[in-house]
């Protein structure tokens, strides 16, 4: 298992999660201006909501690192290991977000975004593995451009809202569930041999 953790860059994932947590804690409420189209004016999105993109990319990169061919024909349940890694990372982040909710304003929302971005990337990996992490990034940018801004919490622009309501959790939780299913059920190979 130790080699599996090494092969799947778990240390890097942990480091990126820690760094993201640091950014969220220190500068999470810094607003990134966005040309928001629905409001026709510059609107700010907290850095805490954008920063999880980086951690999510490193995590997904780790999930799909390693000898995909060999892991696809492994006796050991490598799919479950991958799903476990993602679930553990998201759970740890959420726990940290909840514990620090009083001191870190966007902690929970950042944890939610990590889960949502990772889920989206894992689902997108079924379509094109190498481009998977580009999908949540594009989604985030689209949400910033077209979304309703901070605090509104419509189901699709969850990524830019700080809403504590369940509605902003529905889509990312679904994406994560589908993502976990994707990376645990489907083999690690990108494509079949020619």
């Amino acid at each position, binding site marked *: 298992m130790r080699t599996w953790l090494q092969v799947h860059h778990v240390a890097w994932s942990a480091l990126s999660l820690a760094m993201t947590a640091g950014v969220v804690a220190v500068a999470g409420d810094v*607003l990134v201006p966005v*040309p928001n189209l629905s409001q026709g004016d510059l609107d700010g999105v907290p850095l805490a909501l954008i920063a999880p993109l980086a951690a999510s990319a490193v995590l997904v990169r780790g999930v799909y690192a390693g000898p995909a061919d060999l892991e696809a024909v492994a006796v050991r349940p490598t799919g479950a290991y991958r799903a476990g890694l993602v679930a553990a990372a998201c759970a740890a982040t959420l726990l940290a977000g909840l514990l620090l909710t009083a001191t870190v304003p966007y902690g929970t929302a950042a944890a939610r975004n990590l889960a949502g971005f990772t889920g989206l990337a894992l689902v997108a990996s079924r379509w094109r593995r*190498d*481009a998977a992490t*580009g999908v*949540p990034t*594009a989604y985030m940018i689209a949400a910033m451009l077209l979304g309703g801004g901070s605090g509104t919490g419509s189901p699709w622009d969850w990524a830019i809202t700080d809403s504590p309501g369940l509605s902003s959790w529905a889509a990312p939780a679904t994406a994560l569930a589908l993502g976990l299913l994707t990376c645990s059920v489907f083999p690690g190979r990108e494509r079949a041999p020619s």
Partner: protein
Amino acid sequence: MPLRRWLRSSAAMTALPLMAAYMFFVLGDSTNFLEDNWLSATVLAASAGVMAMGPVCAAAGAWEGARLSRGRVEGAAPVRPPAVILAWSLLPILGTAVSGLLGALSLVAVAMADVPGLPAPSVLAVALLVIVAWTLVGFAAGRFLPPLLGVPLLLAGTWLWLAYPAALETFWVRHLTGNNLGFCCETGTTFHRGALTAQAILAVAVAGAAFLAWARHRGTRRAWAGIAGLPLAAAVVAFPLVRDMGPEAQVPRTDGLVCSRWDGVEVCVWREREKRLGFAAGIALPAVRRLSAATGLPAPGRVTEGPADGRTSWRFAVPPGAGGDDVLFGLATGLLPAAPPSCGPDWSGADAYAPMSAWLALTAGAGRDSVARRTGPASLGAAGRALALPPAGQARWFGHNLAALRRCDIPPREVTPL
């Protein structure tokens, strides 16, 4: 490789719809706020292009860079130089960027249908240069990072670099990114050459560093330090060009006037407004005579939309849609100082500004309702009180209050209604 397959295999083709949609959204209804000059249209199109295509092209570059890396281009026998190899992968992305810019231009061109002139090629060239620079950064990143990291990093990183400086109070940063915030310039202003040059310098340095980083298979620490130092050196060179700039990269325009002489007075408008020259002269010339007589100021030899000294030349504006009263009001207030003197919070001279504007506009021939709308009933009342004075008294009233607007030690006089 056949052309179709070459294009189809490029990430740019996948990214094209995304870029097009993004550009459409970024442009949005901004075209409604365009000024009546092609420079503003070009800046809007270029800004939308850079904002929409810069990040996507950078991400596409990261993808292509990783493809070249996977294909072990650097390990192969060097039949072609690295620049040529890079160019073949870069060209489809570049083609996409050019088509995107042209698309943006054609969208703004619809709004510019009645405005004479052409897009500003230097603005477009710098925009393209900025896109190329970030695309090359993508190639360099793709050389070292897997697409799973490189693509989102470049997509979000470039986007943040372009979007974030708008939130900073340090204005010079935003003039280096090449985004230009979609705005410049009013017809009476032009793009700050220094800003454009600074953007170009930085973009060329970033592109050069990115290319060197991509092309170097292995390098010494000194070589890598040199590559990293290139954009820094460029930033040092570019910084003085934009250091003292305000939030917008516009400076007063000095050329592009179209003039004609009537009764010994030359009337000049911006060439985009040439069609309105006759209309402007018909309104401005009688007003100039009335104002000169009433204020005691010498009649100017030139009335212009361009630079004016207030003595031999007076300033006015004939923007599209402006009616006679608008022109008169602009001409009249052009005789007042543009900025107040630095006198501290107790300065009372500002109280004279609106009554004097009203008096000048009424003297020039503007309608009372129009003046009241602009200056308010109190100022109109004060102006009416001044107008009741004999001509010499009116001239003295104007002279005294003009001095009050220019100096700290003279309080305004009779600027309230009775």
